[in-house]
């Protein structure tokens, strides 16, 4: 593979990894966490079930950690080549371009914090920890709660807007009308996932 093709596939892999598997996992993650609205017992049962999935550790590394690490680190590198100009070009799409990069940087910090506090801090006795109580206690802090709200909305926005640009990058939507129609898909993804995510996080504070 030539240098040109390597660069091309790196960029395309960055685009693809944001949707499959990361976007898919985000949707699943928010969906499963909605169980929190049914109380601690139901939530912990759901967590146990997931932990008993065959090859769980390999799925975690292969579908979550490695793609996230690649998408995040390469994404920061790509963001480093940007000079946003929303003050002189006040168009919606230019704002979306800026927000995509801003939420990406927020998410890099949020995901590290989130992984550290829920997965890595008790890595030795992960199977026996009461995750519902752990979340309840950590979300008592108004700051952590606010960080979670910002993190969830950043993630759902980043995915929804990412679907829009993904469909251009891979050649699905070419014309302006097709791209406008894709905004509806993007908006629906944002609204539905945000609703599920925010309701779930609220359940830990109830």
């Amino acid at each position, binding site marked *: 593979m030539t240098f040109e093709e390597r660069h091309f596939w790196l960029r395309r892999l960055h685009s693809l990894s944001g949707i499959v598997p990361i976007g898919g996992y985000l949707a699943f993650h928010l969906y499963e966490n909605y169980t929190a609205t049914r109380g601690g017992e139901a939530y912990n049962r759901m967590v146990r079930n997931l932990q008993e999935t065959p090859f769980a550790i390999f799925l975690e590394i292969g579908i979550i950690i490695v793609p996230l690490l690649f998408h995040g680190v390469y994404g920061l590198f790509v963001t480093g080549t940007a*000079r946003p100009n929303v003050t*002189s070009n006040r168009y919606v*799409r230019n704002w979306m371009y800026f927000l995509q990069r801003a939420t990406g940087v927020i998410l890099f910090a949020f995901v590290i914090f989130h992984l550290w506090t829920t997965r890595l801090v008790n890595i030795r006795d992960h199977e026996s920890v009461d995750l519902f109580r752990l979340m309840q206690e950590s979300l008592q802090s108004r700051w952590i709660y606010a960080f979670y709200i910002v993190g969830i909305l950043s993630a759902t926005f980043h995915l929804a807007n990412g679907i829009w640009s993904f469909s251009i990058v891979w050649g699905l939507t070419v014309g302006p009308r097709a791209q406008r129609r894709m905004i509806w898909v993007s908006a629906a993804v944002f609204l539905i996932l945000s609703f599920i995510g925010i309701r779930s996080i609220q359940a830990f504070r109830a």
Partner: protein
Amino acid sequence: MEVAKDPKTRDGRRTSPVVYDRACLEEVCGSCAMRVNGVARMACTALIDSLAQPVKLEPLAKFPVVRDLSVDRSSMFESLKRVKAWVPIDGTYDLGPGPRMAESERAYAYELSKCITCGNCLEVCPQVNDRSSFMGAAPISQVALFNRHPTGRMLAAERLDALMGEGGLDECGNAQNCVRACPKSIPLTTSIAEMFRATTAHGFRKLFGS
């Protein structure tokens, strides 16, 4: 132009005239692009009575300034050479007439051919800057033009190869400012998306076909 005949400083002393590029004065040569009141546009069609006073003129920021408002846009020419933005017809004998083009194709290609290499699309692009080597919308749209041409198409694969490298198509961040800044109303974002589709197919062809 009247000002340039008798250039004076603010306190009335004679000085050298402001240097700027211009030729056609009707928005077809592409040389007078500059920032007028902060907006990248062709100076020749920026009519003075429709502008807020005093008018502030600045050179384009994405190109090296030669002097005053005159900038060196040769980076755009380099990009056009890189993507082979021409129809290959040179040879030692007459190749005869090329294939005919459908009228609908010709009409669309004409819109793309209106590009005057003014640089406004690069000026407003957040991905064209000192931190990246992105070529910008204009040369990408030229690939859409020449890959559409029945004879130009003979270099299609080489052009797509050139777009796939660093500083090429995938540096685009889809901010879509270019299509709004283009003085010739060229569907730049459609060209870009069309090239995204073409390079996707080209990439897979190379990955599984070689």
